[in-house]
C-alpha cells in the first residue's frame, strides 16, 4: 500500500482519469447514457476534491475543503441536470 499521501493522490487521479475515459468509450446500452454521465461527473468531482485536498493543501483547512467540496458538488449536479435535460422532453 502506498503510504505517501501525495503519491496516493496522484495514483487516485490516474485511476479516476482512466476510469472516466473507459466509461465514455464503453458502448452503453440505450437508456444507460444517464448512468455513464452520472459516473463521469462523479469522477470529475472526486478528482477536483483530490487536487484541492492534496495538491493545494486544503486537507490542512477542513472548513475550506468542505466549502469547496460542497460548492463543486452542487456545480456538478447543475451540469448533470443540464446534461440530462434533453432526455426529459
Amino acid at each position: 500500500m502506498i503510504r505517501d499521501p501525495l503519491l496516493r493522490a496522484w495514483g487516485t487521479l490516474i485511476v479516476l482519469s482512466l476510469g472516466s475515459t473507459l466509461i465514455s468509450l464503453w458502448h452503453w446500452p440505450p437508456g444507460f447514457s444517464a448512468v455513464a454521465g452520472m459516473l463521469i461527473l462523479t469522477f470529475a468531482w472526486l478528482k477536483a476534491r483530490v487536487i484541492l485536498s492534496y495538491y493545494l493543501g486544503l486537507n490542512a483547512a477542513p472548513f475550506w475543503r468542505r466549502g469547496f467540496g460542497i460548492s463543486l458538488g452542487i456545480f456538478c449536479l447543475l451540469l448533470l441536470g443540464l446534461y440530462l435535460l434533453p432526455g426529459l422532453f
Partner: protein
Amino acid sequence: MSETSVLDELPGDLMIWVLIVSELLVFGAGLAAFLSVRASDPVGFGAAQDALYRTGAGINTVVLVSSGALAAWALRLRDGAQRGAARLALVVAALLGVVFLAIKGFEYAGKAADGIGWDTHPFFTFYYLLTGFHAAHVVAGVIVLLLVAWKDAPRNIEAGAAFWHMVDLVWVILFPVLYLLR
C-alpha cells in the same frame, strides 16, 4: 491579543485563492453555457463530439495530473531544503506542460486537416474557446513554473505550484464535460 480569521486557514497567499475561485467561476460559466446550448441540439453536439480524440485527451489528463504532482513535490522538497531536487521537479513539471500543449497542438492540427473550424458547429465554438483559453493558462503556467524554478524561494514555489494546480483543477472538470459526456 491576536485575532485569527477563517481566511488565515487557507494555505498560501489569499490572492492566489481569489484567482483560483475567479477562474473556476469563468470556466464554470462556460461549461454551463455549453451544456445549456447542447440541450437544444443533443444529436448535433453528439455527432460533433465524435470527431474528438478522446484517448488523446485522456492521455493529456494523465500528463497534467502527473505534472501537478511534481509541482506539489517540488514545494515539499524545497521545504526540506533540497533546492536542486525541487528545481528539477519544477522543470520536469514544466516540460510535461509542454507535452500537454504538443498533444493539444496535434489535436487542433487534426481538426484543421479535417476542415473543422470554430464555426463548423456551435460545439466547436465552445470547444475552441474553452480548450484554447485553458491552453493559454497552460502556457502561462509553464512560464510561471520555470520562473519559480529560477527564483526558488519557498513562497514563490508555493504560489507558482498553486497556479499550476488551478490549471489542473479546471482541466479535470473541463475534460469530462467536453470530451466524455455523450
